[in-house]
């Protein structure tokens, strides 16, 4: 028997090369995507591209209005989804006992996470655009995105809150705090890095979302003037430019801005978080 076995040291070597290989594939895919986008997109970028509105259906000019539309939409989505999501997570972890109700709520949130974004678009179109008469607008789009990212925020916040040592809660209660004081003074401060991670993931999803937004925010190229303006986000702009063959160079330019902004948001948040946490402990 023992003769058939591979020498553990050889086995160890093979496995580590194999795992290294698998990891490299993941990285190579990322590098490949970034290279294609940036190689085609970067030459398009200029101050003018970022500061001027699209002209002639997007063939000329820049993408300023789509950048602003993206920012507003994402902002509204986070404004709505963060309190809702964190609140739900606090309720599930701190205010109820594990039982059938929490299981149902959690299952519901998970189902919500599995729904394709185009269905959210349809839902937003029916509810916000038609029923509530918000029309194709930043508000409709933002609210739709809010529901789309809600499960992510609930899930990551819940994990973050659960990872706070139970002993902290016990100590807090023993020093005469109410449940809410324990949540705000001990639990949330320790859970913030995890919650922020969920929010960043959601920002990325919101910025890049197309299907849910095209149905609810529309695709008008005008500069948004209020939350009731119909407007086109960067992702939608890219989709239309590329799909209708309006202008591939402009499409790549938009894609480059999209990718870079997501990278910047991620890096900036991690930097701030690192700084904030280091200062605290």
């Amino acid at each position, binding site marked *: 028997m023992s003769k058939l076995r591979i020498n553990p040291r050889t086995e160890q070597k093979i496995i580590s090369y194999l795992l290294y290989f698998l990891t490299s594939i993941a990285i190579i895919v990322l590098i490949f995507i970034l290279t294609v986008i940036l190689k085609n997109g970067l030459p398009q970028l200029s101050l003018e591209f970022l500061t001027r509105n699209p002209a002639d259906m997007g063939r000329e000019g820049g993408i300023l209005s789509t950048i602003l539309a993206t920012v507003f939409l994402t902002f509204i989505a986070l404004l709505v989804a963060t309190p809702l999501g964190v609140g739900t997570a606090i309720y599930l972890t701190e205010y109820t006992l594990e039982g059938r109700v929490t299981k149902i709520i959690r299952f519901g949130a998970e189902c919500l996470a599995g729904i394709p974004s185009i269905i959210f678009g349809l839902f937003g179109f029916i509810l916000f655009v038609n029923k509530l008469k918000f029309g194709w607008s930043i508000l409709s789009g933002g609210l739709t995105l809010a529901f789309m990212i809600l499960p992510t925020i609930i899930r990551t916040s819940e994990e973050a809150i659960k990872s706070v040592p139970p002993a902290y809660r016990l*100590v807090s209660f023993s020093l005469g705090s109410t449940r809410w004081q324990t949540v705000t003074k001990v639990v949330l401060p320790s859970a913030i890095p995890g919650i922020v991670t969920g929010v960043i993931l959601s920002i990325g999803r919101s910025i890049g979302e197309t299907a849910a937004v095209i149905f609810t925010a529309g695709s008008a190229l005008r500069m948004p003037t209020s939350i009731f303006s119909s407007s086109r986000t960067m992702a939608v702009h890219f989709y239309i430019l590329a799909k209708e063959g309006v202008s591939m160079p402009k499409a790549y330019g938009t894609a480059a801005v999209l990718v870079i902004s997501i990278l910047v948001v991620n890096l900036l948040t991690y930097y701030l978080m690192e700084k904030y946490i280091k200062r605290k402990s």
Partner: protein
Amino acid sequence: MREVAIQVEHLSHYYGPHRSLKDINLQVYRNEILGIIGPAKSGKSTFLSCLNRLNDLIPGSRVEGKILVDGQDIYGPGVDVVALRRKLGIVFATPIPLPMSIYENVVYGVRLLGKNNRRELDQIVEESLEKAGLWGEVKDRLQTSALKLSGGQQQRLCIARVLALKPDYILLDEPTSGLDPISTMKIEDSLRTLKANYTIILVTNNTKQAARVADRTAFS
């Protein structure tokens, strides 16, 4: 005749169907140190958490019998549990500093009452740390994280944190079980001084400690 501060009558405690304490009757006198010793898992910690109702937080926990603290039935109706926990401060076996500065740890319970006057807080911090025998070691670094203190220092910080609440009773749950002899000695020293102003219940699994510190000792 000494004044009875806590009167426990026919106390039984259950975790779900499992009975953890059976028909306990005892008195705690004012300004004494009552030692409680007994084997592991014999319900010593449960007994302490019955006294300040921390067991309320555990699902399935149930109490029978009566506990009178200063004549008040603490499981009776209309008891302010939050105020009760301030009156009977507890120190756990493992020192658990909250992830904040030494200063903020000490004033944590005080701030919960909405007291934020800096001068008042400063004074409470100095007094409490002094009584817990930690002031000299940390007075120059009150703003550093409490997590950076040694185990013995952390435990004395936990005692200071309880003292800052101005409790009438201090419950200690094997407070020196994880500490070195010198830290243990320091904590025992402060307990002897604290006796003058507080009523102390000390759970320990060390009979020598009970003999050194306690006035009377109960066995579980």
